[in-house]
């Protein structure tokens, strides 16, 4: 039993924090947000240069081959700094699908690019994406909602079902976003990054488009989603920890009624409650990462971490807006950056309700 980080992990944490504090100030975060792309190209290049996009991808493709604990440490920092860009989407969620389901050619064609940052992958899901056979090839039809960073993506992985059979016969296919028949509509939301409604109108797919076997994509999808979920929990944790530090710092010098508001018990207790939730979140998130690293399914652990992350997000948001009060209601204050991301993370990759339901399903006799 050891809940501490190794020296290497501590170095990773430290250097990531140092890098992001220097290179990813909230002014850059705001720029990325206001550009509509949710992306900072210069930062992206630097991040790729540091090897972060390959943190848990195999060394044979240029990755670092790190553990999920490494990935968790890194994504805590990424969350903390509100780092813009499709790190999670491309280098964890989508890259893992390719890695698990793809054949050697596909991996060789895509993973090194993901790691270098030149390839940006995204994932389109939803039960209206259908593949059908025609003229010896496959075509794709239907639409998918909330596809992250589709506008930047070099490839879209579509989780599709066959037109004539029922879910969960998932076939994973690679689609060129520039192909004829692919159209994108921006979905404006609380999110800081672009999401799209992507429509596929009878898009013919090249022969090597299928990742893995037809109708056998579910397992790869599940496993990749699980890893991405842990990364998202880490982001949430990093953000909540930062909000806690921000409010503690503010409460230490903001004066009301003749003393720092941090001396008021109501403020202290809000901070204490947030601290308890952060500590719990940290244990649950690292436990899930560790279990996956052991090759265990960790279904329950991932669901517990994600459900708790949702509650943690709310607590951080409420504590932040309560303690910063008026100033946090202004756009110029950073708190709103944290609360917007908290809300979108809560909703994505299965919300609290969804994960509690999965957990409950395991508790039956």
């Amino acid at each position, binding site marked *: 039993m050891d809940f501490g980080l190794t020296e290497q992990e501590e170095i990773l944490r430290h250097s990531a924090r140092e890098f992001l504090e220097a290179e990813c100030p909230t002014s850059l975060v705001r720029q990325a947000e206001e550009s509509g792309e949710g992306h900072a190209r210069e930062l992206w290049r630097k991040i790729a240069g540091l090897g972060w996009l390959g943190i848990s991808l195999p060394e044979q493709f240029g990755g670092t081959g790190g553990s999920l604990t490494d990935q968790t440490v890194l994504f805590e920092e990424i969350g903390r700094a509100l780092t813009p860009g499709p790190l999670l989407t491309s280098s964890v969620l989508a890259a893992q699908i390719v890695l698990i389901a793809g054949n050697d050619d596909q991996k060789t064609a895509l993973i090194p690019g993901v790691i270098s940052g030149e390839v940006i992958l995204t994932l389109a899901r939803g039960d209206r994406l259908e593949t059908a056979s025609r003229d010896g090839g496959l075509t794709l039809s239907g639409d998918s909602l909330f596809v992250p960073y589709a506008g930047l993506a070099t490839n879209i992985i579509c989780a599709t079902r066959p037109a004539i059979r029922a879910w969960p016969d998932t076939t994973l296919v690679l689609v060129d976003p520039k192909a004829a028949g692919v159209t994108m509509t921006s979905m404006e939301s*609380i999110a800081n990054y672009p999401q799209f409604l992507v429509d596929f109108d009878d898009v013919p797919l090249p022969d090597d488009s299928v990742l893995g076997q037809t109708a056998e994509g579910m397992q790869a999808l599940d496993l990749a989603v699980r890893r991405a979920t842990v990364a998202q929990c880490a982001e949430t944790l990093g953000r909540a920890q930062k909000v806690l530090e921000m409010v503690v710092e503010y409460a230490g010098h903001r004066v*009301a009624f*003749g003393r720092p508001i941090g001396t008021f018990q109501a403020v202290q207790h809000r901070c204490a409650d947030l601290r308890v939730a952060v500590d719990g979140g940290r244990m649950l998130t690292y436990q899930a990462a560790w279990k996956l690293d052991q090759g265990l399914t960790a279904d329950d652990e991932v669901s517990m971490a994600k459900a708790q992350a949702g509650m943690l997000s709310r607590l951080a948001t409420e504590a932040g*807006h309560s303690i910063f009060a*008026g100033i946090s209601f*202004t756009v110029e204050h950073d708190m709103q950056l944290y609360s917007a991301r908290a*809300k979108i993370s809560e909703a994505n990759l299965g*919300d609290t*309700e969804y994960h509690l339901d999965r957990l409950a399903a395991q508790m039956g006799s």
Partner: protein
Amino acid sequence: MDFNFTLQQEKFREELREFLTAEVPVEKQEIFGLLTEEQYQFGREINLKLAERKWLAVGWPEEHGGGGKGPIEQGILAEDMGYWRVPKSGSIGLGIVGPAIMVFGTQDQKDQYLPAIAKGEVEYCQGFSEPNVGSDLGSLELRAERDGDEYVLNGSKMFTSYAYHANYMYLLARTDPQAQKHRGISLFIADLKTSGISLTPLPYINGEMAAQTIFDNVRLPLSCLIGEENRGWYHAMTTLDYERSGLWRYANVRRVFDDFVEFCNGSSPDGGQPLAEHPLVRHQLAQRRLGMETWKLLCWNVAWMQSSGAVPNSEASVAFLYGSEERLRFAEMAMEVLGPYATLRNGSPMAPLLGNIEGIHREAMHLHGAGTTEIHRNIIAQRGLGMPR
């Protein structure tokens, strides 16, 4: 006990509803988190029309241009306007400034300011908070120094909602820096066109454009002082308790809740049973229904106290605190029920309820109106329950 309105009050409400139905088409209604300039101007027009009928200041005495009714009628107006989502304007003049002038103003001030408010012709903003002063208003720093026939104001006010639309600011300034903190403060009305006043934009996350208001040697005539010099803090606190029923805010949220219930009854995202039939959703809807009812009654309790001549104090804090928290509970619940769809903004494909859920969630981050939730709890404990300081 009587939970009914009188027949006259019911009649007023019916007429008001007819008016709103005729004058405020659905497409002009306000959407949470998205107050456009056009909507704001439309709200002012509605106010003018209400004023023509003596309904805008329906609870004010007729001598000041009001409708001669009482707080219950004013509450009915607030509730129905809020529920009908009439874009909000004019509430500071009507709810705070007017009552203060009635109590503390001179006859000249009454004549000068009150009828214009009752007619919906002017907009006020409030100048209490400052960059370093939030809940602890007694520590405010903006100075007003007497210089012959004038006061000279220097300093700045923060979080000025409606600054870009207002004609006047109702403000507190320090007139005696030597006095104990609450005892050296006075209440003023400042014409925002006065030379030396400038605004720095301060956009809010709910889409509203507020401002920081800078005072640089702003000279106000003595007639701008409301009430006694150095008694301003006490004047302001007394009159803050007037329009604090919060019925407008309640009804505005209630409308989205009712729309949300309807949405859940009619919508089944997975093609199966309607959302409202899912046991967890059902349960949450019932909880919030109970929460909304409680909020409504606590607001009406404040209005009733006013109508019976009592001055609500901790009761207003009870209603306000409950409302802030209930609004957040509802916003979180709706977000939870709708999942990612709830995060979609007005104008996005698939955005449910015109984006009102996303908007109300941003609005709900406003946990600090009229003092933080902590301050309201302090007030309830200390003034309401007599607990020691």
